[in-house]
């Protein structure tokens, strides 16, 4: 099963790159001109998201560098110990929805410290693999079209993150 999936992901993009222009050509599309026409928007789209990303990353960066994040972790630790939540993974759990790069950094650090095949190492791997950077995605996607009122998107995103976190801990306790 896993070999099939990993082969599939290795081939997916090359196949798309082969099939799409070929079919377009067969169907009478001017392939080069059409590609360029679509690609024209790329620069403008990337530039438009700069202010949104800067705003979010500045806040996250200040929050983390000041030590506020560490305080938050130590505040929650005693409560979490009671319900059997491994506090070693708390920094990652907090960082995951905020910053993909930072979360990956914390996951790497955790794996390095505890070893990839320890319970904590496997748990943090599962967490890193199963969740996404909710705030980044929200900021980036909404920012790219100028949406300023997110309505309930943050709540459903965070509810999903929380569920994924709880499910990760549960399944890792059962499996490993």
């Amino acid at each position, binding site marked *: 099963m896993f070999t099939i999936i990993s082969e599939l992901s290795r081939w997916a993009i090359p196949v798309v790159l082969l099939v799409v222009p070929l079919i377009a050509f067969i169907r009478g599309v001017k392939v080069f001109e059409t590609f360029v026409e679509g690609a024209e928007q790329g620069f403008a789209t990337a530039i438009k998201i700069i202010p949104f990303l800067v705003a979010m990353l500045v806040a996250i960066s200040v929050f983390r560098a000041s030590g506020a994040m560490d305080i938050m972790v130590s505040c929650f630790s005693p409560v979490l110990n009671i319900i059997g939540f491994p506090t070693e993974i708390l920094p990652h759990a907090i960082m995951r929805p905020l910053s993909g790069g930072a979360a990956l950094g914390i996951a790497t650090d955790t794996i390095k410290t505890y070893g990839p095949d320890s319970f904590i190492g496997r748990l943090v791997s599962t967490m890193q693999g199963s969740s996404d950077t909710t705030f980044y995605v929200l900021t980036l996607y909404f920012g*790219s079209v100028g949406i300023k009122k997110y309505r309930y998107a943050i709540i459903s995103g965070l509810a999903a993150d929380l569920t994924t976190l709880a499910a990760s801990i549960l399944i890792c306790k059962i499996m490993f």
Partner: protein
Amino acid sequence: MVNIIWLIMITLGIIVAGLNGNIEVVTKAALDGAQAGVTTSLNLIAIITFWLGIMKLAEAAGLVRALAYLVRPLTRFLFPSIPREHPAMGAIVMNLSANILGLGNASTPMGLIAMQELQKLNRHRPDTASDAMCTFLALNTSCITLIPTTIIGIRLLYGSANPTEIVGTTIFATACGMTVAIMVDRMLRYIYNRRGR
């Protein structure tokens, strides 16, 4: 919501730094964050431009419409407000497929295209997220990833005996997250629309 979270992160960060006596880290952290924001955006230019070109080709060839047609029963249920033949549907399908395959780089530009198409349907309140946008983001951030490539790489790097053993647990965890995301999205959509927000 995002206004309050943003304000809290900044003010708490500065207050804590001040109390800790290391207020000087704030300036550096703020500039580092800004730098990271710009770098990330600029790094996206190449990949966004590239995928926008391919997407345009796929659209012109009728491939996007064919793919959207295949998964129509599912998307009709999730996105009742998007018209049948609208390109937004195709872009959403492509984005979610890329997410499932763990093609992080490829999914972002497709997601941005999907948002642009959704925004075209969002004429009356262009600064406010539509129902379809909220559902799309809920799905996107919780989407099942079959191959978490980056973390497998890191496990390998630190000498794991079985780097891919976390694939099963990852699929389980993410499936739970996605189910809850769809349920919460439906519930909140109903509540918010009744209140007229």
